[in-house]
């Protein structure tokens, strides 16, 4: 009890933030869990009742087109391809920007630009660029590379690829900025010592750069995975709500459609809890495996 009174000062300052958290995080989350066990939908929005795990059973067994497992697989492909290219491009560009090059500031500004443009504008601009006849991508392919034009938005695989390309363009600046920050915090003496020992460029990269940017990159990658997994805007806007034929959905766009197009609130809540559990398990195991919380030095 005494300890409680000793810490009263801390509690006092934490209380307002905690109350806000209750209002904007805990209460909506618990409410979401509750309605995931209910029959809340168009016909039962005011008089909903608890029906047990029915909605969860539907998530895994309902014959939707495409079904949960196909969408889940697409979400995994979407997430890993995106994050892979975000990290690879981001780190390569950060390594280049970390060199002594002329006009570094201009390059840095230009490379951060995709991040600064509102996603809505990015998505619709890219959608226009993917048009079969008038899109700039097909014009480059046919006119300059003499390749056949691609029907980007009409075929499921190409449409999904179009979404991924857009999101890669949009996402690499974040990883680049994070990696650049990490690179700049590496003490220069370590490279000098390696030079004296006669280490090659590759060995310095492998034994100094990568281990020392890892503690910064792992949380950024974890965040990147969670954000990309839950990234509704690009998929929804580039594919115009899952076109063609609902073949470009990832789990969150599918939830959005279930909740707001067809008013299936109970089902959408259950599906969103499933997504939450997937991400929670993944994040915890990824952080544990990569030892992200361990000190670098």
């Amino acid at each position: 009890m005494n300890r409680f009174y000793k810490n009263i000062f801390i509690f006092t300052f934490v209380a307002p933030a905690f109350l806000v958290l209750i209002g904007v995080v805990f209460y909506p989350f618990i409410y979401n869990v509750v309605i995931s066990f209910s029959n809340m939908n168009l016909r039962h929005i005011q008089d909903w009742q608890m029906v047990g795990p029915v909605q969860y059973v539907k998530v895994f067994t309902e014959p939707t087109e495409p079904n949960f497992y196909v969408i889940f697989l697409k979400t995994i492909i979407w997430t890993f391809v995106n994050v892979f290219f975000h990290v690879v491009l981001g780190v390569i560009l950060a390594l280049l920007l970390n060199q002594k090059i002329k006009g570094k500031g201009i390059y840095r500004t230009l490379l951060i630009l995709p991040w600064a443009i509102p996603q809505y504008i990015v998505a619709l601009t890219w959608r226009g660029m993917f048009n079969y006849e008038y899109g700039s991508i097909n014009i480059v392919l046919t006119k300059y590379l003499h390749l056949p034009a691609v029907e980007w938005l009409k075929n499921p695989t190409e449409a999904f690829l179009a979404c991924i390309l857009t999101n890669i363009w949009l996402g690499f600046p974040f990883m680049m900025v994070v990696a650049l920050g990490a690179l700049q915090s590496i003490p220069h003496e370590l490279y000098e010592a390696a030079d004296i020992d006669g280490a090659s460029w590759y060995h310095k990269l492998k034994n100094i750069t990568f281990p020392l940017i890892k503690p910064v990159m792992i949380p950024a990658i974890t965040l990147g995975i969670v954000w990309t997994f839950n990234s509704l805007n690009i998929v929804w806007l580039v594919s115009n709500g899952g076109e063609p034929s609902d073949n470009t959905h990832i789990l969150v766009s599918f939830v959005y459609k279930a909740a707001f197009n067809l008013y299936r609130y109970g089902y959408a809540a259950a599906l969103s809890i499933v997504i939450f559990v997937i991400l929670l398990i993944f994040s915890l195991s990824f952080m544990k495996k990569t030892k992200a919380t361990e000190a670098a030095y």
Partner: protein
Amino acid sequence: MKIIRHLLSIIHLSSIILLSLVLFLSCSRRIDLNRIVIWHQMRVDERVILEGQMKKYMELHPGIHLEAIYKETEELRSGFIIAAIAGQGPDLVYGPSDQIGPFQVMNIIKPMENIFSEAWIDSFNPKGVTWYKGHLYQIADKLGNHLTLVFNKNLLQKAPETDIELIEIGKRLTVYSNGDGRFEQYGLVWNYTEPFFFIPFMTGFGGWVMDDDGKPTLDNRGVVDGLNFIKELRDIYKIIPREADYNIADALFKDGKAAMIINGDWSWAGYKKAGIDIGIAPLPKIVKTGLWCAPMVSPKGYSINVNVSKEKEKIVVDVLRYLLAPENQLETAKQLNTMPTWRALYDDPFIKNDEILKNSQIQIDRGRPMPVVPELRAIWDAMRPSYQAVLGGVKTPEQAAKNMQSLALRKIAEMNE
């Protein structure tokens, strides 16, 4: 002494929590009887007119504050549902009539037949007042929201009246000369990713989305023939682009690279602003069936939030009467060429003589009212994948019609379970 110190600490902690709670709760909106909020999905030119009219109202009624908040159609719908269920939300909600079905089922809008006098309601075109399950739920200021054939008068003097003429004119006005894989000009464009734009073809071949009981009727000859017709326009006559969504079709027409576009009344002002000399014509007749291509027609208007108190209702009603007043509807019609709903205005010289409005009126008369039942949402959702699959060459029109029907039945069952 120790006890007093403990007591003081507890009081201190409680007061901080209380203060936080007060601050937190004060974020929620106070009920202000003189502040009327309207949520709408009007495009920019409509919004400018609305804001001007609201300003005039506030000058006439000092102390009353009107606030219009724009939301995109889907965001407005979902946002209004969430807010109204929680006992909040705007006082008036504006949009097309198809939102009335879900709002009524969820019990979040007020019946209006007892709020307004019968004589006043009778002043409106019956197509502009939306009744559902015996109650009046929406009064419109604009009628239509309908598709028509818009043509560029610099490229075409007279619009086609039949599908045969459409193909002939389309072939003549489609230009492909330099062999670079891109057409210089198309005869006709429209957004053919959305099933809403397929409706005129479906009705032209005798189909319709649902029967009188709200059951989908998508597996029919009208759907199959309509789909075949579009495929022929693209693959055989080559008078429409290989792919076109709303933005591409719109841009092609605005750039003068398309002679005709199928688009709604909301688009006309934009084409004029882009410097295109437009003509409006009713959609053509399908010679084989003898039927006109009939678009869906729906009014756009206001509904009252169920949470509006009796006390506030008087002001809300007064605002609504003002916004729907004939002089305001005429102002909008003159600026945007939209069809008013106030019946007496149909004798106004402008409405009677304006070429665009005259043709728009013909199209409205030939159109079919958009059903307001919630099931329509499931039908759109069921039509979209198969419609796109036909245009993508993945399904035949026959398969598509079958799949549309079975998917619509399943989605309706899911919605209503």
